[in-house]
């Protein structure tokens, strides 16, 4: 479904002396249809930049993103725009991802209107369908973002994003600011809807517990590179890279997860090594 090959996104920052920041530095992976890949790493490791580069919301510096056979990185602006509805993004801060001046109804109608999908009555029906699907009701349609709670706003964002029935969603820590019980509501909703629509998803988070619950496979990112990737249980229960081990140790201290099992020694060359079927580790850093 999605094939990412050697993706690079560099920034130059600094006022007087320009320095290059390699936010994403040669990343490759694939996501199958209906699969969720969790992306973990500390803040500032480049996970958000990676997510946005995949959708070309940030222009990547190099590499390729192939979506369902089409090389997105080579599309013209116009073709890209036509491609957009098939891949969507959910942001961390639901409040900021809704226009503060628009009512919920307008926010959900907007994607339908942009793509000229349906007539007026059809749009009305579809909006009601969507709002109920995310567990809100028609009364919420006339509210504005600041009149809703964080969880409710994130539901509105979900309805807006799902309006176009995307095949691929990048979710960038959609529950980071939410309470545990609200997080559980949003995550189960998100997981169920993803299943219904058979959506492929890149789920970005720093919370291993959430990633474990949400994803089929996990990729661990460190300083712009993916250092370990594989099936969720393999990576989180038998982490091989030293950074993954630290991450797992930090978040499983009091949850009673099994201690990471020792991993076979790897030869020290700077490449990805397959330690188990589908479980790859960057070997040089060990």
């Amino acid at each position, binding site marked *: 479904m999605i094939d990412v090959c050697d993706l690079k996104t560099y920034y130059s920052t600094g006022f007087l002396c320009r320095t290059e920041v390699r936010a994403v530095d040669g990343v490759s992976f694939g996501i199958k249809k209906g699969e969720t890949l969790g992306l973990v790493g500390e803040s*500032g490791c480049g996970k958000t930049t990676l997510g946005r580069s995949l959708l070309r919301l940030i222009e990547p510096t190099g590499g390729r993103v192939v979506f369902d056979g089409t090389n997105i990185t080579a599309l013209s602006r116009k073709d890209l725009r036509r491609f957009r509805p098939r891949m969507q993004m959910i942001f961390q801060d639901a409040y900021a991802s809704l226009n503060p001046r628009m009512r919920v109804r307008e926010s959900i109608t907007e994607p339908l209107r942009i793509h000229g999908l349906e007539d007026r009555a059809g749009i009305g029906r579809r909006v009601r369908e969507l709002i109920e699907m995310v567990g809100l009701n028609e009364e919420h349609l006339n509210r504005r973002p600041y009149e809703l709670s964080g969880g409710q706003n994130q539901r509105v964002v979900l309805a807006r994003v799902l309006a176009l029935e995307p095949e691929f969603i990048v979710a960038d820590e959609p529950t980071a600011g939410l*309470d*545990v019980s*609200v997080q*559980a*509501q949003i*995550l*189960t909703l998100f997981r169920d809807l993803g299943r219904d629509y058979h959506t492929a998803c890149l789920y970005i988070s720093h919370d291993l517990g959430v990633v474990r619950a949400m994803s089929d496979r996990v990729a661990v990112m460190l300083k712009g590179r993916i250092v370990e990737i594989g099936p969720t249980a393999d990576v989180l229960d038998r982490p091989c890279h030293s950074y993954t081990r*630290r991450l797992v140790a930090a978040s499983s201290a009091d949850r009673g997860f099994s201690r990471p099992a020792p991993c076979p020694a790897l030869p020290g060359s700077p490449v990805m090594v397959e330690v188990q079927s589908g479980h790859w580790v960057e070997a040089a850093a060990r």
Partner: protein
Amino acid sequence: MGDALLCVRGLKVGFPTVDGVVKASNAVDLTIQAGETLALLGETGSGKTVLGMAILRLLQPNTRIEGEILYRGRDLLSLPQEEMQKIRGREIAVVLQNSGTSLNPVLRVGDQIAEAITLHRGLKGAEAEAAAVELLERVRIADPARMAREYPHRFSGGMRERALIALALACSPSFLIADEPTRGLDAVTKHEILALFSEINRGRSVLFITHDIEAAATLATRVAVMYAGEIVEIGPVDAVLSSPAHPYTRGLLESLPARGMRPIPGSAPSLIAPPSGCRFFPRCPCSVGRCETEHPGLVPVGPGHCARCMLYD
């Protein structure tokens, strides 16, 4: 257990608004022993932060406050302003949430800490600066002498939190209130901050306000769970988290991704007009008839373990 250092009795806090009075805290009773860490666990709008701010008397002047907050036997609510000023920082200090605005962006970090030291310990100039560097070292900031001369924007989230802890420790308070110190930090950094807390908490009484169950489990000796302005369950940390008595606590724990991620249906009630009986009644899976009308009291369910629920009445 030692003596009660802080004792909150029947605390009611209300914020008058256009739509009515928001009852953020409803008859809260709480005791903190000398040397213990009590975690106040609750979600957004449960009134946990309000409780912390009420102890420090840092609420808006038009807030309605009733009840008693006894600190070493003195009622903080009836102390004159100057007396309270002396207690704040010197005896009771607060570690604020790392929101990016809790440190002044145009002052050097070292100077901000030195300022607190000058204010409370009377040290001046070079002495205060040296003390500030010492504090930064104590919260394990690498190369403290250099970092003391840096501005807050050069600090990462974790380092800023450490600086805030150093600021709170500036005059070695005997009682520390930490308000969501781990919010917004990533897993590894959070782990490090919690480790730092468990070190500085030794021999000190701490009220650890958090929404993070893990953090509470790591640090606290006792946990109080708040819901809609009330304490619904309180007890030793192991008892509360391994065999929760109140249906809300149970729901909260089951919401954790690691414990099944089963959400509690519905949402928290309005604090302007909360449900008349049990405040959790509309969302409760095990409610009985009288839950709707009768307000339950805190009843013992185990040694030192109480829950506000009809099931145990």
